[in-house]
Structures are given as structure tokens and as C-alpha cells.
């Protein structure tokens, strides 16, 4: 079901998850904000990634994981990529 999500709905769902973790109003989120900007550091960032993985039933690769400096747009792109990989039948965990 997730594979058919539109870009807008992916973004909105990620915004909702980030806003909840960062305890911010969704309206205040910007795609170029880093998690650090939003006050989501260290363990909270790992929790946030976990929440996103659970929500979309995907697994982010470990490579290049540096979530503190990742922007919200990076997260959106990564989720979209993982969903595409999943619907294409290939392993999202590669």
C-alpha cells in the first residue's frame, strides 16, 4: 500500500512523524532543516529513523548514516527511494 503513496503524502507523513518527535508544529517544518536544527539529536534521531522505518515498513541502509546533519528533505528522498526499491521487488536493505 505504501508503494502507491504520492510524494505529497510521503512528505506529509514524514512531517507528522518529525513534528511529533521534535515536539514542533508541522507548519513550522521546512525541507532544508536538519534534524539538529530541529533539536533532534543523537538517540532521538535514531528513534525518529526507527519510527519512519516502522511507519513505511522499510529499512534504511547503514551507509552514510549521519542523521544529525540530515535534512528533512534527505529523509523524504530516502523514504521514497526505499519504497521504490521495495515495489521494484529488490531488497531495500542492500
Amino acid at each position, binding site marked *: 500500500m505504501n508503494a502507491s503513496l504520492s510524494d505529497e503524502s510521503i512528505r506529509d507523513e514524514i512531517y507528522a512523524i518529525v513534528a511529533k518527535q521534535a515536539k514542533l508544529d508541522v507548519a513550522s517544518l521546512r525541507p532544508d532543516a536538519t534534524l539538529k536544527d530541529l533539536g533532534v*539529536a*543523537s*538517540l532521538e534521531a*535514531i528513534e525518529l*529513523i*526507527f519510527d519512519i522505518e516502522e511507519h513505511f515498513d522499510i529499512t534504511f541502509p*547503514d*551507509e552514510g*548514516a*549521519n542523521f544529525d546533519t540530515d535534512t528533512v528533505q534527505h529523509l523524504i528522498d530516502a523514504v521514497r527511494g526505499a519504497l521504490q526499491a521495495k515495489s521494484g521487488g529488490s531488497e531495500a*536493505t542492500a
Partner: protein
Amino acid sequence: MNPSRRRVAITGMGAISPYGEGAAPLWSGLRAGLSAIRPLRHARAEEVRVKVAAQVPDSFDPAARFDERILPQLDRTSQFALLAAREAVAQSGLDFASAGLGRRTAVVIGTGVGGENTQSEQARRLYGENATRLHPLTIVRVMPNAPASQISIALGAHGPTFGIVSACASSNHAIAQAAMLIRAGMADVAIAGGTEACITYGALRAWEAMRVLADDTCRPFSVNRRGLVLGEGAGVFVLEAMDHAYARGATPLAELAGVGMTADAGDIVAPDPAGGAAAMAQALADAGLVPEEIDYINAHGTGTPANDPTETMAIHRVFGPHARRLAVSSTKSMHGHALGASGALELVAVLGALAEGVVPPTANLDQPDPACDLDYVPNTARDMPVRAALSNSFAFGGLNAVLALKRA
């Protein structure tokens, strides 16, 4: 340092590690710069993202090492600890059959997670197979004090005996606690160290979720480091009041001159340079050493993005200009991160460095990180006199424990 205080000698050491059984293969592997990190061996290795680990070789056969009446009581964690304790006691030359020694002997053994293999196996039966009966010795295998208790039973040591839990600092906290028991006059001898056997499916998944494991190898202080590599094993030492050791004609391997223990009281995982620095400064002061007397620091050096620059900063704070003159290395680059056993495995490296005048290297350091600007003895051991050394352990939970060692 209080001059009237009892000094503490180390008169025996034992280990089991990814290099096999014995402190000697561990030290010779580290001295040679040989990494024991290998592809993960586990029944479910194909499923997990973790690809590498530093595991005790399959040649270790518990049935060949333990009486069949005792073996059912022993989680792998206790097996490791008992084996290392036997070796350490044999080297010390202490005879526990002799009158009174057992009454004056303490046992303090650290472990990060206790009987993890038993816990994991019994949980699998319970939840995975809907078994309703668990092994009757599950509790006595799992309890984190089991390694200390098993050693006390094996030796007949009746002094203060307990486990220590402080994650990756457990070994150093245990050794520090044992030294304080001797200083306080509550024991003449203490069997102390740490043990860990933590490579289970559940633990691998949990570490994976935390995203701190490297997928290739452990590269401390290298800019391309990708995290830690799990290890396992045990290191156990015989600590002894210096006067007690000399009175029986024993030759100390080294003096455990000082200890330092602090808590960051900040983040549950992110290290704070102030906490590590305070523990190092405390260990120096406790040992009556000035920074310039330290020739070598065995770093905590996990190879995570957060630890290595933070530890570097802490060393700068404590040592000032001397920070650039002393040698620092992370042997976790070779024996992996054995959590509660890591400080004990690293103490074997420090004792080797003090005894032989050889500093083991930091393996896999091929791309220097500007944020890590000390002399990490990259890739090849170095011959140099080591008069005194520190061994750092910093744990999740913000717990720091540092040992100061001097040539005996």
C-alpha cells in the same frame, strides 16, 4: 596518593579472546597488529545486517574444559571468566589450598549483559516454540553475578564477591573496586576482571537498531571509521597487596597504581569530554603520577563517530602539551569491542606494553581525521619504553573508569 596506603600489585593474568585461549595469544596478536575481526559466525548471520565480529574461535570446547557436573550451570559468559581466572591464578602461583588464603580473597567480575546466550536461547524456546518448561538452571546461568560466584566456588574464595555492571566500563570498574577492597584491608588478594559473551540474534538486532556497528571493520581515529565491531571474551587478573606479594616472593607483572571513576551525568549515550578527562585526571592523582610520566594510553577507541574525537579532546585537556608526545592506541581495532570484557582484554595489552616496552598499534588507521590529532601508533607496533600507562573505558550511560598502571 596517600603514602601509608597499601599498594596493589598484579601478579597473574588470564584471558580468552578472539585469539583463542590464553593471555599470550591475545598479546602476541595485538603486538603483531593482527586483527581478529572476521565474518560473523552465527546461525542467523545471513539475516542480520551485521557482517563482522571478533568471536572466540570454535576450537574453544567447553566440554573439554569443565567438569560435566558444573557445565550445565555455566553460561558462556561464566565459562570464559572461569577459564581466564584459572590461568591468572596459575600464573600468580597462589595456592588456594593453603590455610587462610581463601578467607582473604575477594572476587569482583564485571559483565555488560550477563548470561545473554542463555537468556536468548530460553526466550526463543518460550516465545518462539511456545515451550512451557525452561531449563531449570536458567536463573543461575543468567544472573550477572554468576561469573564472580562461579570463580569464588572454584577457588574457595570467601571474601567480598560480587558482579559489577557498567556496560563497556564493567571491567575497569571491577578492577578498581577490587583494588579498593585491598587498599581498605578487606582482602589481601582479589580476582578481578570482566567477561562477555553477547553475540546472540537478539543482541545483534538490538545493536543493529542503534546504528553504531561498522559493516566492514573497526577503524578507530580514522576518518573513514564506521562504528564499532562486537567482540567477546574475558580477562581476569590476580590483584594482590604489594606487601603480600613480596612476602611470598612473587614477581608482580605491574603495579595497579591508581583508579579514576566518574559519570558524565548528561546524555545516556553521547560522550562528554569533561567526564572522561575527569576520570583520567583522577586516576593520575590517585596514582601520584604527573601527566609527563605517562608514556602510553590504551584508548577506549571504539571507532564510532562520537567516541574518538571526544576521547581525543579529553586527552588534550588532561595532558596539555604532553598529549602530543605520548602514544595512544585502540586495540579494539583488533580484538573488537567485548563490552564488559573490553577493559580486561585491554589490560592484557597494557601489561604487555609495560613488560616488553612495545606499544600495540591501532589497526586500520589509514585516513587520519583532523579531529583526532594524537599519535595513535597506526598499524604497526612501536618499541618504546613504557614507564606508566592509562587504560580508558567509557560506557553507555555516561560512565567512565580509568586505570593507571606502573612498571613493577
